[in-house]
């Protein structure tokens, strides 16, 4: 029996697609508090405003993150959701679970929460939706003791690091993303569980420029696999793509015979750095931007080079205060070396943190700090030399002022004395 009438929500059950309204009604058969989610949402549809409140002092002892306090502002009408906290669980790197683990997590959540989940949140966590303050400590005890499962990050913490499948499943991958992700997760446990920063900070790792975790758009610190040397070309396989014996795009296109080397590959290379000389595919690798197009179209014929590492991009964010922003290429090539515990990557991370923790304003993402002070300042902080890729529009500003230490031999000038000469 429905506890509330929800005529507006019921509209969302019409049509052939899955409906969260149907799902929540089914869950409400065993978890009656779920009716109050629907009841409150129906009121929100009418009032055109949310009736959820965030925040407060919920959490488990010793942790300053991982649980997001959620309350109804209509607790009398909807007591089932008076407290309805969200719990974030740190997903395994590359999200490899077995079904036994998923069942165990779901069983525990039926016991202590609403049973509703969201897999996965945009930080990558397994998100468990809806429990009360009293249930948090017992849930956390069972999670950590029986399931060996920790919470993820929230608030002004390092958020749960996330990565693509990487070398575990994908031949494009230029480094082992799961291993770097796991290493950073363990190395920065304190930053994940306790607030450390002016605002949230996210790491995301992709094995190649296809960037399957969208790190370039969704992380403050994005590590994207790349290579330094030449694309490896197998000319015999190139010939098979041209003859139609190899299906382009790994067979993803339905009409494989339509493949046209000129139209589908050469003309779409963004830098125009490819050509056919007779039967031979040639690439001017110095001008290749590693866009992945030719590799994706002809995976058997073109593969990443052998000198592999990653690019570091900084400062992506969603539209919260200012608009959304993509990450900026900061370091074009960095060594990814598990044998020295990823020293090169860790050094850059801590250089950025030391600077941002001091210079960043409260609630300012590192990308906004970079925007405020300018990329040249950020590059100087990291001790990097500017490279052409840092420049968005060449010579947009014709007024270039050099400081004394930027000019060989330097110079000595008293600006006040200088200006006196020009006084009217």
């Amino acid at each position, binding site marked *: 029996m429905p506890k509330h009438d929800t005529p507006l929500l019921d509209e969302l059950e019409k049509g052939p697609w899955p409906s969260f309204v149907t799902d929540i009604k089914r869950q409400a058969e065993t978890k009656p508090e779920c009716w109050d989610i629907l009841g409150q949402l129906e009121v929100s549809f009418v009032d055109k405003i949310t009736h959820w409140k965030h925040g*407060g002092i919920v959490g488990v002892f010793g942790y300053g993150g991982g649980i997001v306090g959620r309350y109804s502002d209509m607790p009398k009408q909807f007591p089932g959701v008076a407290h309805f906290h969200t719990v974030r669980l740190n997903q395994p790197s590359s999200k490899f679970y077995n079904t036994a683990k998923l069942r165990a997590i779901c069983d525990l959540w039926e016991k202590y929460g609403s049973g509703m989940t969201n897999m996965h949140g945009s930080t990558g966590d397994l998100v468990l939706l809806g429990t009360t303050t009293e249930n948090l400590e017992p849930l956390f005890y069972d999670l950590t003791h029986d399931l060996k499962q920790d919470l993820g990050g*929230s608030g002004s913490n390092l958020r749960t690091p996330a990565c693509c499948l990487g070398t575990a499943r994908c031949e494009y991958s230029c480094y082992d993303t799961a291993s770097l992700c796991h290493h950073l997760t363990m190395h920065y446990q304190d930053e994940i569980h306790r607030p*450390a920063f002016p605002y949230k900070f996210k790491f995301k790792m992709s094995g190649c420029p296809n960037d399957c975790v969208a790190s370039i758009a969704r992380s403050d610190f994005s590590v994207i696999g790349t290579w330094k040397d030449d694309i490896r070309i197998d000319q015999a396989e190139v010939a098979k793509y041209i003859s139609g014996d190899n299906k382009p795009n790994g067979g993803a296109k339905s009409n494989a015979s339509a493949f046209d080397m000129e139209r589908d590959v050469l003309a779409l290379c963004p830098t125009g750095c490819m050509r056919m000389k007779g039967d031979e595919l040639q690439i001017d690798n110095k001008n290749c931007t590693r866009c992945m197009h030719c590799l994706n179209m002809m995976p058997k014929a073109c593969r990443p080079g052998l000198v592999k590492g990653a690019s570091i991009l900084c400062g992506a964010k969603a539209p919260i205060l200012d608009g959304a922003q993509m990450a900026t290429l900061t370091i074009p090539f960095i060594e990814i070396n598990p044998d020295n515990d990823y020293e090169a990557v860790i050094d850059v991370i801590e250089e950025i943190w030391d600077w941002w923790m001091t210079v960043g304003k409260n609630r300012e993402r590192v990308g906004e700090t970079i925007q405020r002070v300018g990329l040249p300042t950020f590059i100087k902080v990291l001790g990097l030399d500017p490279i052409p890729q840092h420049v968005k529009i060449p010579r947009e500003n014709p007024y270039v002022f050099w400081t004394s230490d930027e000019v060989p031999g330097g110079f000595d000038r008293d600006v006040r004395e200088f200006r006196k000469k020009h006084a009217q």
Partner: protein
Amino acid sequence: MPLSDDELKDAIVAKATKAPKPQLYIKDFYKCDPDSKARRIKNVANELVREERLMFWSSGSTTMYGIPSRIKNEDDKDQSN
């Protein structure tokens, strides 16, 4: 010269006690010791939470620090309306 751990802890607690609002950003504590790096101040503030002399307060997207009695007071007021 950076303050000792105990001096820094006392300075942080004093600041959180006197501040006009019960919840403070981690950055608000940096001024307690200009000679210490930000990450040290963060670590000492988190130790104070383990000692229950401070507690975390979360807005959902940002986490703040405060004296437990001051924060609980305000939270009770908030929950009752």
